[in-house]
């Protein structure tokens, strides 16, 4: 989908590296479409600043504030110099009328985030840490191409940090279990990916734990 953005120049905003674009708990009525640079979505949970997501050009953030009256649920920080289009409630509907592609993009953003959160919830309800990790493998393979799905061996692009985040576990605890899976030859570890030998084994394992 290509959108001609030149007509939106008046909505253009620029942030420098390290700028807070908006802050958790702040009332907000603007949302952003990234044109260049990356944005980190973070949330302070207890004593740590947790990175929830890293967004790239073409992605939308801050969208929840437009449709509902609620404060920001996370903070957005510019990782590098960021150029974005800033929209607000007032010009939102006008914007959609003239540019329905943006509405569609928003819809796709919502759908992806609802799915991610729902899947995360299901992972977190598993009591056994090993089952949580296995369920992350399942989740990450669910959205693979149908060609990839015809094999029981799956290559998953992920890192221990990412998996730990999904599971709500510490990286070290997570690394230990992943190593254990590797020792059992259920998976192979490479620097930026994990090869799951037989996804069906993990599916059976997760299903047996979910029913408990």
């Amino acid at each position, binding site marked *: 989908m290509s959108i001609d953005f030149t007509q939106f120049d008046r909505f253009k905003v620029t942030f420098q590296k390290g700028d807070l674009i908006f802050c958790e708990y702040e009332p907000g009525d603007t949302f952003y479409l990234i044109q260049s640079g990356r944005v980190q979505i973070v949330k302070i949970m207890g004593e740590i600043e947790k990175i929830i997501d890293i967004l790239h050009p073409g992605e939308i953030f801050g969208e929840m504030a437009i449709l509902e009256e609620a404060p920001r649920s996370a903070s957005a920080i510019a990782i590098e110099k960021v150029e974005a289009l800033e929209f607000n409630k007032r010009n939102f509907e006008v914007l959609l009328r003239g540019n329905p592609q943006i509405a569609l993009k928003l819809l796709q953003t*919502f759908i992806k985030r609802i799915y991610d*959160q729902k899947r995360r919830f299901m992972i*977190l309800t598993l009591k056994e840490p090993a089952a949580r990790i296995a369920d992350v493998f399942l989740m990450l393979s*669910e959205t693979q191409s149908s060609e990839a799905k015809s094999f029981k061996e799956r290559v998953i692009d992920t890192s221990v940090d990412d998996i730990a985040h999904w599971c709500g576990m510490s990286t070290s605890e997570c690394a230990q279990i992943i190593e254990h899976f590797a020792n059992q030859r259920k998976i192979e570890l490479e620097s930026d990916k994990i090869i799951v030998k037989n996804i069906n084994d993990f599916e059976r394992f997760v299903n047996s734990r979910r029913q408990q």
Partner: protein
Amino acid sequence: MPQVMQYQAKSIIYFEGDTSEKIYILQSGKICLNFTDIETGQEIRELVKTGEFFGVKSALGRYPREETADVIAQSNVLVFNVPEFETLFQNNIRISMQMLKVFSNQLRRIHRKVRNLLSFEEQSDSEKGLFNIGEYYFNTKKYKQALYAFRRYLTYYPTGAFQSQAIQYIGKTENYIQGQPVEKRESIVDKPLQKTVKKVEKEESRLFFEGMNYFSQENYNEALNSFKTIVNSYVETEAYPKALFEIGRCFYSLKQYDNCIKHYTLLIQKFPKHPEITDALLYLGLSCEAKGNKEKSLSFYKKILTMGDDSSQTIRKAKQSIKRIEGNL
């Protein structure tokens, strides 16, 4: 073109777990969506209203179906493929706005469920929440972010409960930002502050920042070296009194209480109007207390209470210390 399909009672349009790119609108009849509630594990049955879409998320996101679509009574449905649905969605602002609202709401609810599960304390008071974010960034020395949060706090809550604290934090944060070397500083300050930024990086600012960095990593010996270099070589600079103060903190953190007492005693004599004077007194008190001299430490803490114009945090700490000692006497 979307097609009208007729389904007989007791038939299934799709099963949970299926993958498909079809999206449906119920035109007439009775259809039920069956799914498992992710929170309770209970089977839930939800009737589709006439005119309502179903199968949207799984088709657009290419995810497995999350529910089974069960035909209760003979029904007519309009079936779209993804491009057809996208065309409809883009050409009908009323439908798209409505659907976006529904999904936005779903997203917020599922967010809340995940947070409850992770049992993070959700701050329901946004005013306090925003102030806490500022404090978090201040404490982790991310001064740029802290400044943003405190300024926002004052914008939204100009007469809020944390108003005076926020103002104090802003003052401190600006000081810290100015204590950092220029290249760091330029990206940190916003326009009004930028005027005070000098273009040439000064060696003593670099050293001071280096010292603060070591200190935050609990590498007190290295920090001490950086601050001592400033005190020995850059006497006439702004960094000098600041470094002098930090040396005392290093001594205290290294448990060199005698050195700490000697150092702060000299500092107070030399700079009776030092901006950190109450903190210096606090460290004097803490050092005496650590050495077992409770009487003397009490006199320092009580002195702090008479200097009411300082940040309340120091006074609070002094009060707590007095309680602690008097409780033990």
